[in-house]
């Protein structure tokens, strides 16, 4: 059972380039989340989705876009990368909201923007 899988795990971009991070879960979870973690800080929520075809902004959404075209996948896009987006990105999912069960995290994707 793979759980929550993130690709790629590492990426280096130049300022202004675009890229997409893919999160896939095989647990039939409704809710999915994208967080970023910066050195010495906790995780901050970028965007989340409560079901296929829906997305919502989190705490730090600027500079990012997301899509949830399929229930099992949640994509995080950077249209024009900036050095301030250098971070480790974590995807997470839960059955149907935090009140229904545990939050499962992926292994993280380390992004460096030069």
């Amino acid at each position, binding site marked *: 059972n793979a759980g929550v899988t993130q690709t790629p795990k590492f990426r280096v971009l130049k300022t202004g380039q675009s890229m997409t991070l893919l999160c896939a879960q095989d647990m039939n979870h409704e809710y999915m989340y994208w967080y970023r973690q910066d050195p010495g800080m*906790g*995780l901050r929520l970028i965007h989340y989705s409560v079901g296929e075809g829906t997305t919502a902004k989190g705490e730090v959404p600027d500079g990012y876009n997301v899509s949830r075209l399929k229930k099992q996948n949640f994509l995080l896009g950077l249209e024009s990368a900036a050095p301030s987006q250098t971070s480790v990105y974590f995807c997470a999912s839960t059955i149907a909201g*935090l009140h229904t069960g545990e939050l499962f995290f992926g292994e993280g994707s380390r992004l460096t923007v030069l």
Partner: protein
Amino acid sequence: ELKVEQNPLFLSMQEGKNYTIYCNYSTTSDRLYWYRQDPGKSLESLFVLLSNGAVKQEGRLMASLDTKARLSTLHITAAVHDLSATYFCAVDYNAGNMLTFGGGTRLMVKP
């Protein structure tokens, strides 16, 4: 805006000693989570505290929640080196849709 603060941010302790990590949060919530993160790894769920007065224990770690004081504690008993990690608390916000994390406590247990 919900704020979650942990202290201390860094803790170096000897094996065999006891210590407590504190997590304060600024608005009403009945659900609090503790996670462990090893360097370069993902987050591992330790405890979910669901009501005022909740206490959970696993091995040398014990977590408690006081919703009236908006305070949770993670108590470490007779620390061992394997407990070295960064510990995060997180509070449920927006009716089960979002977690707000504290800044983390980096714990180093020395032999």
